[in-house]
């Protein structure tokens, strides 16, 4: 239920990445090269802005990666686990993901409050940092609800939601691409 409710904002974040952030990165890099090479006037703010865009790219995409179970893992022993072992591994994974997301929310919130208090902003352009910390916290919050929802699924559905960027996962991805 929670997962299906979350899938809409996760898709929106992913689409924002695909339509806005990624093209913006390409645009800034190419503009910088062209301006530097042909007009000898590089974009002095390019490095810093690209760093911030990269942050957006990663944290907007993270909930989508988690939803698709694409984070890299090793399933060497997992394949030999029985049903109990698999359930344990799955729930532990969700629990640790919940902790990870809380760390993101916590540090993002501290970042927002600190950057607002000390008026932290980029060196080259007057762009405040607090929205970027807020993005980290937001990404963490979405992952928190995702992992919490997965933590309490019944054992019978665990096998069906297992994916992962393990060998099996990558082969599934390839199969999907070929189809």
């Amino acid at each position: 239920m929670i997962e299906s409710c979350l899938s809409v904002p996760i898709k929106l974040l992913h689409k924002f990445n695909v339509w806005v952030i990624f093209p913006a990165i390409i645009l800034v890099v190419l503009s910088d090269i062209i301006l530097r090479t042909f007009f000898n006037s590089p974009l002095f703010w390019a490095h810093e802005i690209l760093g911030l865009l990269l942050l957006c790219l990663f944290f907007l995409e993270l909930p989508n990666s988690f939803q698709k179970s694409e984070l890299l893992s090793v399933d060497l022993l997992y394949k030999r686990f029985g049903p109990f072992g698999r359930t344990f591994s799955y729930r532990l994974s969700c629990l640790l993901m919940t902790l990870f997301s809380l760390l993101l929310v916590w540090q993002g919130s501290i970042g927002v409050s600190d950057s607002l208090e000390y008026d932290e902003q980029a060196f080259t352009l007057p762009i405040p940092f607090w929205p970027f910390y807020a993005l980290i916290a937001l990404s963490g919050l979405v992952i928190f609800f995702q992992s919490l929802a997965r933590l309490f699924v019944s054992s019978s559905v665990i096998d069906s939601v297992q994916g992962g960027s393990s060998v099996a996962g990558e082969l599934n991805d390839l199969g999907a691409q070929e189809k």
Partner: protein
Amino acid sequence: MTPQSIGGVSIVLLLVLILLRIPIGIALVIAGFIGNAVFLGFHSAIVQFQLVTWEVATNFVLITLPLFVWMGQLAESTDMGKDLYSSFHKWFGRAPGGLAITSIASSAGFGAITGSSVATVSAMGNMLMPEMKRYRYDSGLATGSLASAGVLAILIPPSVPLVFYGAWTETSLGDLFIAGIVPGIMLALLFILYVCLHCSIKPSLAPKGEHFTWSAKLHSLIHLLPILSVMLMVLLSLYFGIATPTEAAAVGVAGVFVVGLIRRRINLKVVLGSISQSAALSTNIFVLFLGGMFFSRFMAQTDLTQSMISSISALTLPPYLIMMMIVLMYLFLGAILDTFGMIILTLPFVFPLVLSLGFDPVWFGIFVVMMIELSLITPPIGINVFVMQSVVPDIPLSTIYQGSIPFVLLTLLMVALLIAFPEIALWLPAQMKSN
């Protein structure tokens, strides 16, 4: 508890979590955070995590990652491998083991655009396997050469593992890319030489292919030109210092895009699909990088890395013996971990040790990538072999592994040569700097 023992317990915790199939990046963050909290206190652990997250997420060097990944995805989506295959097939098809040679040459070329061995094996496998079956190639030779040739993709620049290594160790990406060229070409030539000799001795393994006229051969070069131009644009701009790796990546992306447009293989769906996959792949690598950096900082604080280096130095073992031990360690780790897992888990310890022994960081980057290559074609994980089997499900996994054995031995020979003659990797970057 001493700082070193806290570090030691954290490593054990990390390994247990990884073996329990916790995503590697998350396991690194959690093990590092618990260790940090025990060692420095909860508040300091949060501050450390905050600092590392910001530093890694805004690391300008990492911008190369989504760019090269996208370049590879675009090249894959626009069937550039097909052009390479059709051209090389016309030139090498009649040679002993011609189709296997075609697979090696095409994989090396395709790898020089995609930087991904999985993509290379999948693309080349789907194109070449039906042909190899038609000519009744030996299954072991056919699948083994295809699976093994895929490893060339991550050695010949651009290479995603090299970007990862460079960003992690703060080694010049340009130097790393240029250093990968000679070993990559040498390994490809070794593979080709082996196939040629083996098939000359046992022609039944690989019946001769179709004959093509000189006009057809020359005509096929026209299709090769756009891909070659993109490859050369990237490599030469790096070699002559015209572009930074980030700029070279952008140039490569623009090149692949233009080629795709000219060949009418690019549309909005292809572009958006490739961006979507690139964003996902880059984020996966980012999580690993974040976790690895956080854990590595913690290890440095506990002084565990330094004491380990001191203990090994105190043994006064010859550096080459230590390198042999590192080779064995990577062979073992390759059996249980994937590409980035291997890099992220070993570099915090092995990189300072190797530097303290006087080895060059650029050389070591190439060495690490070659060890990763081996893990891609050796059991039990051998991702290239699994991908190959997904292409030809009727051929057993054991046949593909057996077919890969000669290529594994050749790669080991190349590693030995690289250790004995570091100039193989370092000569070209030195030339580049002197230019």
